[in-house]
């Protein structure tokens, strides 16, 4: 069985992102997440650099690795050309591959992201599309977006977009042939199995936590509701 450090090391991004950290802390000083959360990218890099399995296990089971906003502000400031944000990407990957992500509140949210962005990508060929930005779940989008959303066809046509129609242009319909290619790329390159892994561990956690149907099987609608409302103190 591979150690966690071996798993991390198999990802080329660890070699790209971690050279020899001298623990100066400038990454933490510039990090927007460190300003917002109890979060310290410097100590994450030190932990990974130590190769200590127990500490790495604790890290990938924690909320900590999910606090990074992936802005990569750490990258240009590091005097050693490390990229803590990239190391975080590798930790998150291993956390999901090993099922460690379900042990933290922020980690469990990967199931929500899979259900929204993952579904958008596979079904439409876009990460985001107008019908997916529902005003009720996006009140921050404001009154102008609500008006756009309610008058999508006319507004997009007015500004020269090609919403849900054949041919080129903004928000055009991605045809079946192109979506088939996308699906085959996901199947060939491990994207589908990664999605399945997130679902497998999420289902197991849902069952273990009592989100089940009458047959004792995981009830993922109940689990989704739980995730949407899970606050800091529940777990």
């Amino acid at each position, binding site marked *: 069985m591979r150690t966690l450090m071996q798993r991390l090391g198999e990802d080329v*991004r660890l070699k790209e992102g971690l050279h020899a950290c001298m623990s100066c802390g400038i990454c933490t000083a510039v990090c927007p997440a460190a300003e917002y959360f109890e979060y310290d990218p410097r100590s994450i890099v030190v932990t990974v650099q130590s190769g200590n399995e127990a500490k790495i296990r604790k890290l990938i089971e924690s909320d900590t690795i999910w606090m990074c906003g992936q802005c990569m502000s750490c990258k240009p400031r*590091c005097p050693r050309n490390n990229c803590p944000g990239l190391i975080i990407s590798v930790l998150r990957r291993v956390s999901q591959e090993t099922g460690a992500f379900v042990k933290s509140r922020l980690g469990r949210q990967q199931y929500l992201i899979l259900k929204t*962005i993952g579904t958008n990508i596979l079904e439409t060929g876009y990460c985001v599309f107008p019908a997916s930005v529902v005003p009720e779940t996006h009140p921050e989008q404001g009154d102008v977006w609500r008006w756009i959303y309610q008058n999508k066809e006319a507004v997009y046509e007015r500004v020269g977009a090609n919403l849900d129609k054949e041919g080129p242009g903004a928000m055009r319909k991605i045809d079946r042939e192109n979506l088939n290619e996308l699906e085959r790329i996901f199947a060939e390159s491990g994207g589908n199995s990664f999605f399945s892994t997130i679902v497998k561990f999420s289902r197991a956690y849902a069952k273990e936590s009592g989100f089940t149907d009458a047959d004792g099987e995981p009830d993922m609608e109940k689990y989704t509701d739980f995730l949407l409302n899970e606050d800091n103190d529940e777990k």
Partner: protein
Amino acid sequence: MMKNSQVTVTKEIADDNYFYLRSCIRQNFFPGAEKVFLDILKNKLGKNIIDNANHISCTGIGYHSDIVPYETYQAMVARQFALMTEQGLKNAAVSCITSYGGYNEVMKTWKEFPEEEAKARKNLKNATGRRFEIPENISHSCDIIYKFRHDIAELAQYKLINKQTGKPLRIVDHIGCHYAKIFPEKGIGGAEQNTVLSAIVEAWGGQSVDYPERRHCCGFGFRHYLVKNNRSYSISNSKKKFESMEPYCPDMIITNCPGCNMFLDKWQYALAKIEGKTYSGDKNGIPVLSYEELAGLVLGYNPWDIGLQMHQVDVEPLLKKMRFDYNPDEKYLDAGGKFMGQPEFTGCLP
């Protein structure tokens, strides 16, 4: 060792024959910006740029929210390159900043780890039968506007002047993080002294205004916006920027990232709802425009043709400062001239 951000900028920007790679977020929220960019290149600057219907999302938002593994992301990028190759084009013009950072990340990986490129080629071929050549040039579309900023200035119908005062418009910029923070040498001026937008502003007669948190992230944070419960991270970062801009009294914000453009527009509205205040000294807020939209205005495009009615912070106060010749009565008319209804209100505070 010299810091990354101090590298000499030697970036080259192709001058013609581009393959356009659209942005999920820009198409969604500011589709008119992509339309006017293509129109300026084709019809004002006489360039060849291809808008290919077969290209799809690079999946970059999925990649940075960690549901799309790097191998899959590389294969998706390879497919974009294959479409370019099939079209006989070698210069990418990228609308999205996340994609721009992503394409550069993949190119860097392939250079250092040729086995990763071989794997991406194999995955793409097995899945689609396609092959690709490495692009000769990858530019963000803001780089292209930057390159032709003086040509645009020569064609301009408007300068970035406040005609009410006779002084240049005061413009703050926000550079999307993935434009130059990951690879400073890929952005004009690097990560610390980025000049891609300020040079555009100055070429068109405006005043580029510095502010302390100019380099701070808008707060997208990928998973921090995508999950509703996490959005306070996102709005907190934008608030920090607005507080930093406020003392400098900007007439507008210019951005190069589709997501940042959306967040800086929408979070002003949300903050006004929460705090009952704006950062502009009026009820409207600070208008937020992308470089394509601003180029469109300078060149005299009808603001409603290029989608400026899709912004929450109303652009009309800015148009009035410029004494821009426009018809407010056409703002909410559809393509056939019929009234589409209108938002309950625009701006930030009623």
